[in-house]
């Protein structure tokens, strides 16, 4: 039995994200930093660089490299995550780097690196998207030259409905078919550049028809445009000089 129209537990419309909070300059030691949250999913990002890249064999003699590291606080999830690298965080670090690279203008600084550290403070699905959004703001806050921002959101297909910004509950949505609990969600995290609407992150797992994917991407594009506006506003918010 599949639901024709999935009604979201928190009452949101299909194209509505959870409450977004975005601000920059949250870590004083970093060259740039930012906080971004989709409701209960919170991420902070710190940027250090451009700086010398060690070890030497990773250096690129023609330009500055981008190196992103994604991780989660052990207590950000309901079942404690053991501190240390995991395959999941390694993969997310990789796709995050690839999602941000296309907008960076890093020629002319050979053998250097821009390090981005993303930390999930509290997880409620869509953490890699929250991380990418925080990282993009942190890069801008650090004065790294970019030809635009990158905004990410998770789009999901729950039953027959395409929705934006999945919660953990929605990610785990199952349907009973013949006495069995079957996963009925397709999770599609994606990221768009603010200029040119190019897709720099696209992952998918589940079961979806091509036409439905087209619809999902269109929704993602629309939502990411709004997110980009929020990010830009946060980046430009300079504390009025305190007296």
């Amino acid at each position, binding site marked *: 039995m599949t639901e024709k129209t999935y009604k979201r537990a928190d009452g949101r419309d299909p194209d509505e994200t959870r409450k977004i909070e975005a601000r920059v300059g949250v*870590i004083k*030691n970093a060259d740039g930093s930012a906080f971004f949250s989709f409701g*209960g999913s919170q991420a902070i990002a710190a940027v250090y660089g451009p700086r010398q890249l060690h070890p030497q064999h990773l250096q690129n003699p023609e330009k500055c490299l981008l190196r992103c590291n994604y991780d989660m606080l052990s207590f950000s999830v*309901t079942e404690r995550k053991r*501190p240390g690298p995991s395959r999941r965080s390694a993969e997310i670090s990789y796709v995050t780097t690839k999602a941000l690279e296309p907008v960076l203008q890093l020629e002319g600084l050979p053998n250097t690196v821009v390090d981005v550290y993303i930390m999930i403070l509290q*997880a409620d699905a869509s953490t890699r998207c929250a991380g990418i959004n925080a990282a993009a703001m942190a890069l801008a806050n650090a004065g790294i030259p970019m030809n635009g921002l990158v905004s990410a959101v998770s789009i999901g297909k729950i039953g027959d409905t395409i929705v934006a910004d999945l919660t953990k509950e929605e990610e785990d949505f199952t349907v009973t078919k013949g006495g069995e609990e079957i996963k009925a969600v397709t999770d599609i995290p994606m990221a768009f550049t603010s200029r040119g609407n190019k897709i720099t992150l696209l992952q998918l797992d589940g079961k979806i028809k091509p036409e439905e994917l087209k619809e999902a991407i269109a929704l993602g594009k629309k939502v990411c445009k709004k997110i980009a506006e929020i990010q830009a506003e946060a980046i430009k918010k300079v504390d009025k000089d305190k007296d």
Partner: protein
Amino acid sequence: MDTSSLTKKRIEELLQEGKRFDGRKPLEFRKIEIETGISKNAEGSARVRIGDTEVLVGVKMDVGEPFTDSPDSGALIVNAELLPLASRKFESGPPQIQAIELARLVDRGIRESEFVDLKKLGIKSGEKVWAVFVDIYPINDDGNLIDAAALAAVAALKTAVLPVLKDDKVQYGEFTTKGLPLKEMPITITCYKIGDSFVLDPTSQEEDSAKVRVTVTMTFDKETYIHALQKSGEGALSEEEILEIIKIAETEGKKLLKRFDEFLKKTAPK
């Protein structure tokens, strides 16, 4: 650029006149901010800011097996990660000695003071007990991580609640309203020696200028007890200096406890 030897010298000279760059007295703490319940999936959590230093601590609990010689006692595991995002000085990779020492200092303070009454954390004698995980994460390091981490750990434990147990299995994400079995709160004060002066709550630059430090964890119920003490860094201290440091830790520790108590009274009980 790290703190230059030029600036280190200046800091030492200033302290000889009882002065610091930010106008504080040598034993004065910066502004302290404490927030608890900052991460909803944790059984307990706290954020402590001392000046620009910021540390997050979370408490997670799970069911584990007891040690054979203490079939009814729970376990305490304290871990610290010096995240590269908090400071240029921290590198990615497995925990270095600073992270390990930080975790062990906070662990000893909690364990030796019996702040968490491990004996009351049994579930099924000899088979199942509560394991309490305390994870420490600096978010911005501007000196004195130890005191900030210890304070956050105590705040997180004080406001933590047990998760729901069903058939002796933890129901992740479901919480009871029952707190941990706790005794008297331990307070940690680390005293740094810069040149010939004793300093509390150093900034990052002041920490760079210090050669040796002593961390003292005490409780102040009816009597003052020292539960943990650690000298760290380079150099030697005289007997008089150690005694003076303990006196400083007691006086300033009592003040810190008072501030903490006031904070706890202000915040609504969970």
